[in-house]
C-alpha cells in the first residue's frame, strides 16, 4: 500500500512535556515536517511526521513516552485551495470518511496527511482518482 508512517504520542497536560519531546528530537537532528495536536483539558495526542520516524519513535519510547506508529495517507497536491478541495471531493465521492487530517508544505507542494476510516479503501479511491500518493518516505 502507498502509505507513510505517523508517530502518535500520548501527552498528559503537564508542564514541560512538549519541550521534552522537542528537545529529544532536536538533539538527534530529527526534523519535524508536520505536527498536529488533538486535545482535551486533560490529555492530548501529538501526531508527528519527521525526517526519521523509526528513530524518532524508538527515541521517544526510550524516554518513557507512550508512542504509537501507524500508517496514514499522504496526498500531494498543488499548493492552492482548489487542489485541496478537489482531493477531498474525490475521496468523498468515492465513499471515504476522514477521521482526521492535517497539512504541511513541502517543495512548493501541499501535502495532506489523512487518516481515513478505512485506509485500504481510501488508498484505492485516491489512486483511481489520479491523486499523487507519497509512499514510505521518512
Amino acid at each position, binding site marked *: 500500500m502507498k502509505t507513510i508512517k*505517523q508517530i*502518535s*504520542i*500520548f*501527552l*498528559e497536560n*503537564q508542564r514541560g512535556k512538549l519541550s521534552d519531546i522537542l528537545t529529544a528530537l532536536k538533539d538527534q537532528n530529527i526534523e519535524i515536517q508536520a505536527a498536529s495536536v*488533538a486535545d*482535551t483539558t*486533560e*490529555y492530548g*495526542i501529538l*501526531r508527528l511526521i519527521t525526517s526519521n520516524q523509526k528513530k524518532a519513535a524508538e527515541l521517544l519510547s*526510550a524516554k*518513557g*513516552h*507512550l*508512542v*504509537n506508529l*501507524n500508517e*496514514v495517507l499522504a496526498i500531494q497536491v498543488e499548493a492552492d485551495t482548489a487542489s485541496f478541495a478537489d482531493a477531498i471531493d474525490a475521496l468523498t465521492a468515492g465513499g471515504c470518511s476522514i*477521521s*482526521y487530517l492535517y497539512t504541511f508544505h513541502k517543495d512548493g507542494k501541499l501535502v495532506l496527511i489523512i*487518516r481515513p476510516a478505512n485506509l485500504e479503501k481510501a488508498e484505492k479511491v485516491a489512486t483511481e482518482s489520479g491523486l499523487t500518493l507519497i509512499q514510505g518516505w521518512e
Partner: protein
Amino acid sequence: MNGKYWNEEIETMPRKQLEKLQVERLKKTVEIAMGSEFYAPKFKELGITPESIKSVEDIKRFPFTTKNDLRATYPFGIKSIPLDKVVRLHSSSGTTGNPTVILHSQKDLDEWADAMARSMYCIGLRNTDIIQNTSGYGMFTGGLGIQYAAERLGALTVPAGAGNSKRHVKFITDFGTTALHCIPSYATRLAAAFEEEGIDPRTTTVHTLIIGAEPHSEAQRKRIEEIWGAKAYNNFGMSEMCGPGVAIECQEQNGMHIWEDNYIVEILDPVTLEPVPEGELGELVLTTLNREAMPLFRYRTRDLTRILPGDCPCGRTHVRLARFQGRSDDMMIVKGVNIYPIQIEKILMQFPELASDYLITIETIGDNDEMTIEAELAQATDDFAMLQNLTKEITRRLKDEILLTPRVKLVGKGVIPQSDGKAKRVNDLRHNH
C-alpha cells in the same frame, strides 16, 4: 527433594488430629504468655489457664488483641519471655503513631524460616532453585523472612534487596535466577525494566514469582504470569504473626492454605466480632500457636477474607483463605458509600488498554467529596475518539461497581508516583483526614 510435601505429616494431618495439635499448642502458648505483663492480668480475670482449655472452641474465651494494643505497649510491653532470650525485632513504620514492634526468640526465627520454607516447597521450589529477593532487608519482614526461609529450603538465595531494577535485571540474567519474591506492583515494574533493556521477561530463567504484601486481584496475577511467562503464587504474611510464611497458595492456585499448626483461624464479623456463617466474608482473626517471645491471641488482622469450602485436591488439610477483599482500614467512605480500592482495581484490570498502575484521589470540592482515578495507559494511539470512549467506558463500569461516578483521567507512563515500598493507591486529601 522429590516429595510433594515439605512436612507431609503436618500438611496432610487429618482435621481431628490437627485440632488436637492446636489445643496442645494453645495450652503451651497460654503457659508462655503467663509471663506477659499484658496478657497475664487478662487471663487471670477471665479464668484462662492451660488446664482450662479443652478444645479449639475455647478460643472464644480469649480477649482480642489489636494493632492499637501493640502501639500502646510499645516497644516491649507484650513480651512473654525475658529480653535476654529475644534475638531479633522487626518493626512496622509508625506513620500513624508509635511503630509496632514484634520480638523473636531463636526458636521463633527457626519456626518462621521453616514455615516459609514449607510455603516455598508447596509452590514447587526446591534446593535446586535460585531465589532472588526484591524486598528491603531492613525492618520489613519480607527481606530477612524470605532470606532465611530460602536458605532453609537449601536454595541459592540472592539478597538483592529493594529498588535498582537495572541491578535486578543483571542479577537475574547473570545468575540464572529461577524464582523471585516481590510485591505485585514491582513484578510489573521489573518486567518493564527488562523490556527497556530489550529483553522479553518471558525469555528469562524465572519460572516462579512469590507475590504478596500488597492487595492484588486475580486479573493482576494473570497479567503478571503473562508478562513473565511464569507462575505467580499469592503469599500471605504479616509481621505480627512473624512475616511471610503464614499462608500460601498451593499449585492449584485456588486459595491460600494457612498453616493451622501455627495459627488458630477465625473469620469474624468486624462489627459484632461473632463468627460469620461458614464460607462467608469476614475479618481474619489469628492466634499464634508456635511462638514464644511475643505470642498474640485473637489478633485482629483487619484483612477481609473467607474460608473456601471443601477439600483441596493437593491433599493439604489446612484451610484455604480466599483472596483478600481489602482491609477494613483501607475502606474509604465517599458520599456515604463504602469502597475498597480492590473493587476499583478489579474494574481497571478488565481494560487491556490500561497498564497496572493507578491512583485514587479523594478531595473535598465545595461541600462534596470528589473521587478522581488516574489510570495509566498501556500504549499510545493515534485515535483520539478511542481514548474518549475508553474514558467513558471505564467511568461507566466503575459507576456500576462503586455506585458513584468518579472522574477518570488517563495518564502516561511514570506520572503516578512510585516508591520502592508498597504502591500508593489512595490519596485522601479531604479536610477530615
